[in-house]
């Protein structure tokens, strides 16, 4: 749909946009949105980790996080065009967890684009997901933007098919942090080839949004903030002028720029992870441009969690709805060479962490 879009027609369109909608200066150069009036918003909910205790009993805190996000997305006015679900609906991939999570998600009043996480995958290797929820990878076009959904949490065949006595054991191993018997995530050849074919049909001027669960770059291997074949995926995306990768998994505000690709992570609705920088024994590659999420108040169970939405309008504004904390907005695109927090990028403006409790 957007293949014919060229830079020249966009600039013309952008000029009209500036006049008509007062697009913030600095956003108008990028090729986002096909023509004036094509600006749109979509929401992002990720990592609810619905956890069954037994029978119909689920971990209350996680369940309430997802319910809260769904309710708040429904409150958006105007409503978003769709919601991206960033993965890890379930904690241990159980049917009961999926069913309970879907029961909550069905209250959303807008369509959902599903991305699978490792907690959804490693019990039945995506069987329930594909039968009841969504394909594992696919693409779609929306108002001049090409969206690609990838399953980025695959591992090698030995680990996946041969290492573990039972699917339950495999799931538990995958759910374990700092696991010496773990395995790094991959997109793998089959999907990379599919991706190449899918993108072959798209003009390089077309803005591209890639949706994955894990970051398509390497941050910290022990926690799988990592995709092992990230460089190969990035190479496929390289010819495109504007690429944004949105991912979950890390349960925190995290953004980065590698070449032509901007990366943005969202919080989970279940719990916040610490940043790998807090684990000083091992090196990490937390992007220096990220203004870290300041989890100010450890007494608040929702602090550090939340959801987000993205305004696509000449560039992208990533809104982080940080519960029980100050909302953040990160701007991507336009004259900006790298994603930038609209309020706190300058160190002098930052909210200092609480040091006394």
């Amino acid at each position, binding site marked *: 749909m957007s293949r014919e879009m060229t830079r020249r027609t966009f600039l013309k369109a952008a000029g009209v946009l500036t006049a008509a909608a007062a697009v913030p200066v600095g956003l108008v150069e990028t090729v986002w949105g096909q023509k004036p009036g094509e600006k749109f918003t979509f929401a992002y909910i990720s990592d609810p980790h619905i956890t069954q205790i037994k029978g119909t009993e689920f971990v209350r*805190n996680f369940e*309430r996080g997802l*319910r*809260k996000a769904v*309710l*708040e997305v*429904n*409150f958006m*006015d105007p409503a978003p065009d769709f919601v991206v679900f960033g993965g890890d609906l379930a904690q241990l991939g159980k049917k009961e967890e999926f069913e309970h999570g879907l029961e909550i998600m069905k209250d959303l009043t807008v369509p959902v684009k599903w991305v699978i996480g490792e907690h959804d995958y490693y019990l039945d290797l995506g069987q329930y997901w594909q039968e009841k929820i969504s394909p594992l990878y696919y693409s779609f076009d929306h108002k001049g933007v090409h969206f690609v959904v990838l399953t980025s949490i695959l591992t090698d065949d030995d680990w996946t098919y041969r290492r573990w006595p039972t699917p339950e054991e495999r799931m538990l191993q995958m759910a374990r942090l700092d696991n010496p018997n773990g395995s790094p995530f991959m997109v793998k050849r089959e999907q990379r080839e599919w991706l190449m074919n899918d993108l072959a049909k798209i003009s390089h001027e077309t803005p591209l949004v890639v949706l994955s669960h894990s970051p398509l770059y390497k941050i910290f291997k022990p926690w799988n903030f990592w995709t092992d074949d990230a460089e190969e995926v990035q190479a496929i995306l390289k010819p495109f002028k504007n690429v944004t990768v949105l991912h979950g998994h890390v349960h925190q505000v995290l953004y980065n720029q590698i070449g032509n690709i901007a990366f943005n992570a969202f919080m989970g609705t279940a719990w916040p992870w610490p940043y790998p920088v807090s684990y000083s024994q091992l090196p990490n590659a937390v992007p220096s441009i990220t203004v870290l999420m300041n989890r100010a108040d450890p*007494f*608040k*169970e*929702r602090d550090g969690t939340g959801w987000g939405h993205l305004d696509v309008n000449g560039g992208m504004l990533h809104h982080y*709805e940080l*519960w*029980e904390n100050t*909302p953040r907005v990160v701007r991507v695109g336009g004259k900006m060479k790298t994603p930038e927090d609209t309020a706190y990028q300058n160190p002098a403006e930052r909210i200092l962490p609480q040091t006394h409790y």
Partner: protein
Amino acid sequence: MGKICISVLFLIVVLWVTPFWAGEVPLGLPPVPIPSDNPQSPEKIALGKRLFEDKRFSGDGTVSCANCHDSTKAFGDGLPTAEGIRKLKGTRNAPTVINAAYYEAQFWDGRRSSLEEQAKDPFVNPIEHGLSSHEPILETIRKDASYHAQFRSLFGIEPKDINIDHVVKAIASFERTAISGDSPFDRYLYGGDKTAMSESAIRGLEIYRVKGRCQDCHSLGQTYAIFTDNKFHNVGVGFKAIEPRMMQIANAFRKAKQEGKDIDKSVLGDREISELGRFVVTLRPSDIGGFKTSTLRNIAVTAPYMHDGSLQTLEEVVELYNKGGEKNPFLDSGIRPLNLTDQEKADLVAFLKSLTSPQFANVALPTSMKKE
């Protein structure tokens, strides 16, 4: 060493001789924050008190600030919701002015950031002082020669140049003197007097800190306590009334606000909008039904309770928190069932009653509020 001694001596002398308005505070309170553009002075405080009590600044000449913030009623009014001109009822409980100087935001929803800005709104709210603008106040002051000398000496202005900012600066200065600490609790915790609180209240303090989860929001410091986190929380009080239609109400308000509708008039005049709480300021859905953590100082003499004055006694308030608030989709995550025993509840109430400062110990509760 010598230097330190001299400094300490100097400090002691300064604290000793400095009158209250310049920074000395009762036991258990931090220094009063004073904005740099509105320094305190005895003259300004006196002028502020006079303005605070002047009933002419209202549509029918019957309402002053002191109507709802009555110093003989611990700067409250003892009513569930405030009453303005012609006995018009607002939607919210008049909060006490005592220690309001420590809040980072004013009103139950924090829609004003300073006492000065707060003081402007009730004058022109149709159900409070009921004026259509601030002009009649300024006219009254300009015509009343007894005000002129004070404005002249304080602000260096002639009567014709008096504006509402001068008026509210004086009022806010007066309000910054309405602070109180030195309660039995303060003497017990900060003054080292282990006999200042009853055994029951001492047990209640422990409940307050741990099992009751009270201090998560009603903060206690190491050297002082202002009993607020200056945040906004949904505990569910009054929310049932709007829950079935909350989305329509919120979206209608959002639209009205974007079209420039006055928030102050909406929240005090419309019970449904009032229940949106903090949302009216931020438009964040997670703020729906959130109200400011109010101070607990003098709580025993400032009934009734909650933003809508719907609870009559401290026992009822403790019961509300014990059951985990009123369930609703926006209930604050920290509000959850406490499973307090009857003894623990009684101890908690005893603790709350130890927060009354000596100057308000004899405030009479309205008959309807009295227990036993």
